[in-house]
């Protein structure tokens, strides 16, 4: 297990360094940072001074090492457009995005597993058919359409929920949360539904398919032959075996919730990292772009590590299995 954890960790670091290299390259290929920072009217001397000060005359491996060192401390320089430290901008925007993404993830996995199990157990029931049909819509409709549809129904027609922004937020140190005020909570509902819906349908269909597969396994048949109650067969024996493959794919999907947040944040004018990134792209604000890239990569790496750890908790064959570990 220890070796496995080390290997996962090493892979994660490798991914991060690779992405960091891409993020670093952006500085060299997207615009000229000196021009970006000083504007067109600066004198030749100003430019040379700044180039020297930024270390842009050093060989690139040294620059890259410096970039890595800074990135590890969360420093990505100063935004070209806003003239503020990128780390401050990120810190400011992070709570909005994380609150949105985590709530969406909980909504999508919780309800997805529940509905998937239900649809698998009552395979031919009317409700299951309704669930499956609705889920097809979720899989095929683009996120922004779902968002606009929800806004139209709940904000424009019914006037129940706000259509944009976070509402009132409460500051807890550098963190800001919308969960503690009513308008904040109301503002979260539509974006969470929008961002989570696709994942929800995906996880639900996955759980259902996987569970139906497990229900055909020999050990389920043997459990029946032992007279074990149906509920126990479904919710103990089958569900645990279902969750093992589901954890991986659901985990990877939840990583992409962060990436998909860009669309949702744009539709709802959500002041999160996704919106920050979209603005940065418009103005070729490379420090912000590269920081966002690193952030997304870090999220994926962390999710992956968590999934690997969950495997060990769920599957005894990995925990003790020298045989299995050697197998691949």
């Amino acid at each position, binding site marked *: 297990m220890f070796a496995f954890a080390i290997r996962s960790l090493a892979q994660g670091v490798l991914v991060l360094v690779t992405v960091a290299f891409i993020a670093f390259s952006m500085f060299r290929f997207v615009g000229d940072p000196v021009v970006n920072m000083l504007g067109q009217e600066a004198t030749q001397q100003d430019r040379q001074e700044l180039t020297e000060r930024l270390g842009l005359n050093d060989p690139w491996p040294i620059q890259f090492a410096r970039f890595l060192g800074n990135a590890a401390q969360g420093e990505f320089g100063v935004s070209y457009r806003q003239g503020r430290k990128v780390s401050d901008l990120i810190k400011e925007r992070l709570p909005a995005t994380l609150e949105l993404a985590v709530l969406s993830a909980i909504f999508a996995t919780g309800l997805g597993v529940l509905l998937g199990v239900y649809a698998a157990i009552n395979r031919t029931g009317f409700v299951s058919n309704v669930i499956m049909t609705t889920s097809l819509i979720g899989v095929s409709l683009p996120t922004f359409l779902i968002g606009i549809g929800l806004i139209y129904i709940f904000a424009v027609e019914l006037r129940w929920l706000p259509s944009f922004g976070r509402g009132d937020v409460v500051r807890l140190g550098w963190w800001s949360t919308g969960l503690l005020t009513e308008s904040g909570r109301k503002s979260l509902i539509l974006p969470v539904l929008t961002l989570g819906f696709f994942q929800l349908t995906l996880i639900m269909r996955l759980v259902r398919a996987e569970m139906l597969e497990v229900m055909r*396994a*020999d*050990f389920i*048949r*043997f*459990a*029946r*032959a*032992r*007279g*074990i*109650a*149906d509920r*126990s067969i479904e919710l103990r*024996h089958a569900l*645990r*075996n279902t969750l*093992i493959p589901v954890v991986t794919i659901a985990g990877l999907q939840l990583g992409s919730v962060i990436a998909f947040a860009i669309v949702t944040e744009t539709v709802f004018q959500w002041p999160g990292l996704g919106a920050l990134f979209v603005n940065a792209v418009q103005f070729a604000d490379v420090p912000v772009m590269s920081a966002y890239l690193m952030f997304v990569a870090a999220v994926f790496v962390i999710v992956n590590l968590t999934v690997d750890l969950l495997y060990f908790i*769920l*599957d*005894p*064959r990995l925990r*003790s*299995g020298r*045989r*299995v570990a050697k197998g691949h």
Partner: protein
Amino acid sequence: MATGDTAMEPVLSVRNLSLEFVTRRGVLRALNEISFDIARGEVLGVVGESGAGKSLTGTAIIGLIDKPGRLSGGEIWLKGQRIDNIGHDGLRKIRGRRIGMIFQDPLTSLNPLFRVGDQIAETVLTHMPVSKAEARARALALLTEVGIPAPESRIDAYPHEFSGGMRQRVVIALALAAEPDLIIADEPTTALDVSVQAQIITLLKRLCRTRGTSVMLITHDMGVIAETADRVAVMYAGRIVEIGPVADVIRQPKHPYATGLMGAIPALGAKVQRLTQISGAMPRLNAIPAGCAFRPRCTEAIGKCAEAVPPLVPVGATSARCWLHEAQVERSASHG
């Protein structure tokens, strides 16, 4: 001794059991008029080549036939109680509690994510009014009884930590956990290494004998039948073609198919052979010929064999379905 004791009610009595699969291309009859009894403590061997309907017979008895299969006739009685029509919950109380099942593949019969002790205790708790601690103690006792070394530590191990033979021992412990009256063992050793097959059969036989548990032992292996069973039923294309005391069926089989099978019994200690002595193959369900299903492969077939299915009638010590014993057939017809 096992055959004719009418004073003692059989543990299991199967009467004219038929089973069919309703498919798009029509109804396939997989079991036809299956009848047999198993007495208390008796071991009934069931032999026949692959696809003969042995597993379906066992599965039908514990009521685990999946769609599109369905019982289309006949009755199943367990100690005087009819069990083929008692519904889902009634059956669930019988499975594991009164009829234990052992499937072919010990590697896949156990849930990989649960400790073996917990799986045994779960079965005990499902059927018996005991506390968790008592169920665990019982699990430990069962593991000891089936010959798991160091059971105190192995009770908390997972299935993948056992070898195939050891896993099949755990499966036997599970089948016996609630002290059933009957064990249905469907090719319990086929998937195992040849070196452990005999041990498992010996173990199963010993445990069932000490408890007075009856056994329906499904197998390919005539050698196992010869050593283990009291009586044997020979199946062919969904029917029992011969049934009787094992010594008689082996020494003087009456049905030509049984005769062919007996020719396939390996000499003592020789390697197990498959039942390939008879040329040709068993017909598929959708291509069973009229009359006797064995006729196309039979070297002794007569005109009548193509016309009608022979009834199962007593021929000497056993009963057989074959027109060659027409004298007995006619005698029994005039009796009834």
